[in-house]
């Protein structure tokens, strides 16, 4: 019973988002030809100046059907591309967190700063 209530709450949240999306698309606010102020190029054209053009070309290539021989190549290339994007984001965030932790360790806390004592974990002679 408890699980069913939880599922209903999640679905209610999803319905709220879906309803809002439907209204926005129906009124042409999002998802239209000029979504986000970016115009959709004609089929087969590519506008290098427009960021949206690249997105649309990519999106269309996703929707386009391919031959059996091409499917494995598409899958592996697409998977690698998406995995690469995720790996880059993860690497950037993890590296950022690591650098931030290094900076936080070197920075003296309010008590240490007030007393003039170095922080406990600060390495000796590595203050410069």
């Amino acid at each position, binding site marked *: 019973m408890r699980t069913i209530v939880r599922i209903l709450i999640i679905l209610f949240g999803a319905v709220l*988002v879906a309803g809002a999306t439907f209204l926005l698309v129906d009124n042409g606010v999002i998802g239209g030809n000029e979504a986000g102020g970016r115009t959709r190029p004609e089929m087969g054209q590519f506008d290098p100046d427009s960021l949206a053009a690249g997105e649309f070309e990519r999106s269309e290539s996703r929707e386009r059907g391919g031959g059996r021989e091409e*499917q494995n190549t598409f899958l592996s290339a697409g998977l690698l591309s998406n995995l690469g994007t995720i790996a880059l984001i993860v690497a950037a965030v993890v590296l950022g967190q690591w650098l931030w932790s290094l900076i936080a360790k070197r920075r003296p806390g309010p008590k240490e700063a007030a007393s003039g004592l170095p922080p406990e974990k600060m390495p000796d002679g590595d203050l410069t």
Partner: protein
Amino acid sequence: MMTKTNTRKTNPVKLNYLLDVAIFAAFLVTLEPHATGMAIHEWLGIAFGAAAVTHLLLHWKWLVASTRRFLGKLPRQTRVNYLLNALLFIAMTIIVFSGLMMSEVALPALGLPMADGMGWHNLHAQASDAALILLGLHIALHWKWILSTTKRYVVSPILSRLPRRRAVPASGVAIELVTEEVSS
């Protein structure tokens, strides 16, 4: 005389991990409809929605606790994580909903008509791109957990099954290969 019942308690962390790996794999495959074909893309997308609901159910306690404390005292990372998860939920809902709205296989197979319009296509693609970035951030924020759990449930069991070299005392020949089965 008592009868033995073979009831094995499921490890919640392991279950969580397996479900997350399955969701991640399903998401990556679903992002390539031209490779899988439209039918697999659509049915996998619907299954993905169900798996996402299960994922939320498994993290229900965290979800409720964070929602209650969101406007009060909450660590910065938890707050960022919460906002990111909310955006990911919105993006995933838009992907599934827009996918259903322009469904060519799944909904017509159930006798439901599909809506036509380029708007849904554009929204579906844009939400997919946004979800990919949000998923990357979501994974990055849970990276430590992912590493430790992978080590615990994937790397360690594999290593424990590999043959180990054990030095034999001087009277022995040289080195003996011993396979140790470690039951977890």
